[in-house]
């Protein structure tokens, strides 16, 4: 899932400073699991907005804001009266969710600002509610076949291709005062356990950024 956390309301209030009539939209998928757009969080946000003197003209769950096709469907439920009144939108979703909504707004000729209520951290494992671990940075050239299934980009504080670095101490990482595991020791131990230290011995080239990073789309049709 995509793990999110709530922004401080002061930051949201500041973003909404110029706007009074608000439509609140919230994600029905990952952000619910992250307990950022579940019923309690939505009620809390409505309360905050009210206390800040905002007029919430409408609020609605969008099943999967990051899916433009789903947004087209969910949009049908948004009443015209609310759209006539609205000054700004606020969305509780990941960053991709908001940006898919922008495409929807273009399609629907909505020329109103939309603001984000959450911070997005990454692609994560859910250990249990309240414990999420970012496991993948979407680097585009998955290295897990070489590393025993443990991602060096997210599990190593420096994202090294050849670890461990001199900062590891008894399997712990220098970053964060030796509280977290060193990703490269995890990789070593895993490869050892599955009898594949041959992979650990391999010198890996530097990360290839040619096709990575910014302005990336996956388009095959």
């Amino acid at each position: 899932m995509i793990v999110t956390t709530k922004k401080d309301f002061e930051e949201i209030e500041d973003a909404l400073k110029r706007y009074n009539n608000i439509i609140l939209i919230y994600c029905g998928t990952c952000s619910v699991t992250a307990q950022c757009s579940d019923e309690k969080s939505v009620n809390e946000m409505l309360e905050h907005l009210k206390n800040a003197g905002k007029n919430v003209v409408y609020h609605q769950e969008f099943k999967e804001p990051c899916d433009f096709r789903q947004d087209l469907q969910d949009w049908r439920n948004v009443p015209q009266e609310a759209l006539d009144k609205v000054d700004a939108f606020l969305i509780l979703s990941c960053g991709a969710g908001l940006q898919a909504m922008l495409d929807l707004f273009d399609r629907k000729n909505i020329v109103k600002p939309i603001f984000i209520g959450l911070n997005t951290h990454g692609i994560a494992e859910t250990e249990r509610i309240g414990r999420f671990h970012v496991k993948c940075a979407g680097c585009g050239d998955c290295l897990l076949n070489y590393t025993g299934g443990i991602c060096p980009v997210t599990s190593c504080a420096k994202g090294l291709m050849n670890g461990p670095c001199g900062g590891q101490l008894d399997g712990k990482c220098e970053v964060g005062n030796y509280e977290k595991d060193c990703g490269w020791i995890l990789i070593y131990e895993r490869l050892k356990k599955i009898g594949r230290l041959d992979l650990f011995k391999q010198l890996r080239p530097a990360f290839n950024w040619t096709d990575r990073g910014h302005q990336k789309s996956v388009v095959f049709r």
Partner: protein
Amino acid sequence: MAEKKVYSKLGEMLAKGEFILTGELEPEKTCDLSHTIQEAKEMAPYVVAANVTDSPLGIVTINSLAASHIIQKEANIEVIWQLTVRDVNKLGIAGMIMGGHALGLRNILSLTGDHPNMGDMPESKPVFDLDSATLCMLVREMVDKGTINGYEIESPPKFHVGAAANPNSNPMEAEVLKVGRKVEAGCEFIQTQVAYDLEKTIEFLTAINKYNVPVLLGIFPMKSYAMAKGFDTFVPGVDVPKDVLAKWKSIKNDYKTDKAKQKKIYDQANYEFFKPFITELKNKDLLGGVHCMAVHYPRIFPKLIEVIKG
């Protein structure tokens, strides 16, 4: 195998298989290098070369390329330019390597570098485009092939490149295999983290012996009890032996009133501790030399020459 090319005094001594001594200089958060230059001058007659650090612990200091050049020129000492991959991407580092050559530098120590998070600019972007092994690869490509990414360099740089290793590392095997990768990447010498545990050091050096790369063992002669205690407390994973600490404490207490005498006793105590330690490793043919990491203690070098002799 083709004869090894030699670009520096360090390279020459390593090629000859001489047992060597290197030192360390730590420029600080200043644009004035006069203190470091003074220290370098005092150290110069005794060492083959001295490392110049690159913002250790992520604490911003004067840039190590600039400092290396100035120190080498002013103090008449050969420098091992410590270059971390923490702050500059591959493109930038390739440019710095050419710049380093143009400024007269001939030795690089390839380091990952401490994460910015640990230093005084934790908000700074951690780059780590390369790592210590891939930096060795880049240096070797630029020097041996005269290319960057296959593109020709009109007048290529000449460098020897070394890397670090930690004999205290646990699990040791991971560190040993990492040394193997560094050597495969073209690393020509190793300077180790400070080690006090002789048995563990022997085990580690024996394990990396197969890679056939000269190893300079990191040592930290302790100028005072405060230094010994500080090192023991603040350097993660390295414990100064209890009896050493006790001895240094007694020197501190016994010679309170005679500072000149106290200095001599400290120096002698360092000699007495390190001589058998190094001799044992030397006799086992596990070392290519010693790297003294103690900074601001240049008067110890004549004693260290005694340590490595014979």
